[in-house]
């Protein structure tokens, strides 16, 4: 499969995403609007922002997952199996409780700070856990996420914010309107930054000794990677809510296809991430038309199936 082909597929999916929804948005409605139709407004205020949000969030999340896997040298780690998402939610809850009127960028930054602290704690614990079998790493992350999540839920319950918490942890693009998604452009900037340092991230994925031998300052690239992952996670949690499995499946599929040299694989990961999110969101809009199923739910179903497939396939390769 060639890269231009994949890009065209994403463009086609994006066009479908522009046209699918409860409001009528056919070409005729756009060009010759009837009385009472607002096709142009629907397109500008809702559909275009939503489609852009899907592409930006999908690409950024898939790349963030790849970075996490390189930094932990483990294929089963992504922001939702490392305590990153839960920490970001805790940060968002904290800022909502104490400074409820703060602008969204401040909320995002606080959430990113918490995400960074939570993920750093995860790496710290990994250093202390002696037996680093492939599966203990994500298990440690899921347990840490469970603890942070429990704290968050407790306070959300006490302060009547459970509904908001649910919105952060379940991805849903139905609320995306012009003015509510623009933070995701920062996600794009972070994705491009990751591509810019792709060689260093690939080296970091080979471990501390290899990177040090080649003159790379391992610590600084790990810090940079953590900052990218934390900010991307925070941005996604703040704007559209968590997209589970995305950061796990896309990097693993691309790794099987073409290996882990990120200079080569990151563009694929970004494009396939965007594509998968588009497909899941369009499905969510069509399955129960004219109502919507949140993308988090669809992605959970498709994602867990794909993940199971990968796990079983992985076992075959080992045998």
């Amino acid at each position, binding site marked *: 499969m060639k890269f231009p082909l994949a890009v065209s597929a994403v463009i086609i999916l994006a066009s479908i995403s522009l046209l699918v929804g409860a409001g009528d948005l056919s070409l005729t409605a756009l060009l010759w609007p009837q009385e009472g139709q607002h096709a142009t407004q629907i397109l500008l205020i809702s559909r275009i922002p939503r489609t852009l949000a899907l592409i930006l969030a999908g690409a950024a999340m898939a790349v963030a997952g790849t970075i996490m896997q390189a930094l932990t040298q483990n294929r089963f780690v992504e922001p939702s199996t490392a305590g990153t998402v839960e920490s970001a939610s805790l940060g968002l809850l904290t800022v909502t409780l104490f400074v409820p009127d703060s602008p969204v960028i401040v909320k995002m930054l606080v959430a990113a700070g918490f995400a960074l602290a939570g993920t750093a704690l995860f790496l710290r614990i990994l250093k202390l856990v002696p037996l680093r079998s492939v599966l203990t790493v994500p298990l440690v992350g899921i347990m840490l996420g469970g603890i942070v999540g429990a704290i968050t839920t407790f306070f959300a319950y006490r302060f009547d914010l459970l509904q908001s918490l649910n919105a952060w942890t379940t991805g849903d693009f139905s609320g995306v309107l012009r003015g509510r998604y623009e933070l995701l452009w920062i996600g794009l900037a972070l994705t491009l930054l990751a591509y810019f340092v792709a060689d260093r991230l690939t080296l970091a994925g*080979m*471990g501390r000794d*290899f990177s040090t*031998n*080649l*003159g790379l300052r391992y610590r600084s690239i790990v810090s940079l990677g953590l900052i990218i992952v934390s900010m991307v996670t925070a941005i996604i949690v703040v704007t559209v809510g968590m997209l589970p499995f995305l950061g796990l499946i896309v990097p693993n599929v691309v790794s099987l296809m073409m*290996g882990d040299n990120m200079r080569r694989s990151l563009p694929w990961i970004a494009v396939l991430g965007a594509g998968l999110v588009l497909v899941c969101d369009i499905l969510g809009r069509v399955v129960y038309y004219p109502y919507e199923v949140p993308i988090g739910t669809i992605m959970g179903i498709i994602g867990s199936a794909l993940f199971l497939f990968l796990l079983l396939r992985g076992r075959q390769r080992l045998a």
Partner: protein
Amino acid sequence: MIEISNVRKNYGDTIVVRDVSLQIPRKGITSIIGPNGAGKSTLLSMISRLLPLSAGTVTVDGLDVTTTPSDVLAKRLSILRQDNRVGSRLTVRDLVEFGRYPYSKGRLTAEDRAQAARAIGFLGLEALADRFLDELSGGQRQRAYVAMVLCQDTDYVLFDEPLNNLDMKHAVGMMKLLREAADALSKTVVLVLHDINFASCYSDYIVAMRDGTVVRHGSPQEIMTSEAIREIYDMEVEIQETQGRRISIYYT
């Protein structure tokens, strides 16, 4: 020259390397031998700044390894540790080309690619160049790592047990290749070796460690005596001379 002075490594009260002072001469092959737990690998890791020193200094051509920027050192000295469990799915060519990272910082020039191709050829890996590391046998993978380190093209090349995972034929091939790197490319090769007969046949200089200290150092002729081996390994061996080489018989 690598100059090691009063180097110590301790973890709490456990001393792994105690106040070692040593000069490793330029050019040729220097082998570090000794029983398990003698501190050989630890010393090699400290020389190559992979492990911080508890005390003392190490300089490479006058550059202090703890203060010299890592990327400057990466053009002078390279190290391959044992047990390389690289989880990344990289092709052999990708891996070897990463050996140029200190020079290219990821933007490979035509010269970098040619250098990588030469290293791949040197190790006889042409047919495997586009295979992923996780599709290779242990020995093939070991050769790919060695190709990467040679591609780094440093004056000093350090290997921790380079014969790991290699069968007899490939082990001899590897030692011959390192000999060639030392002679033809005038590199300084430092090895940690378990097999003292390989050390005897291929080294110019042998350093023997035991309990964290250097107990002997000298030419293979000087180290390969029953008396010296007894002191190093606490074991009686018979030394025989065949074709001008000293071989220890220690299997029975």
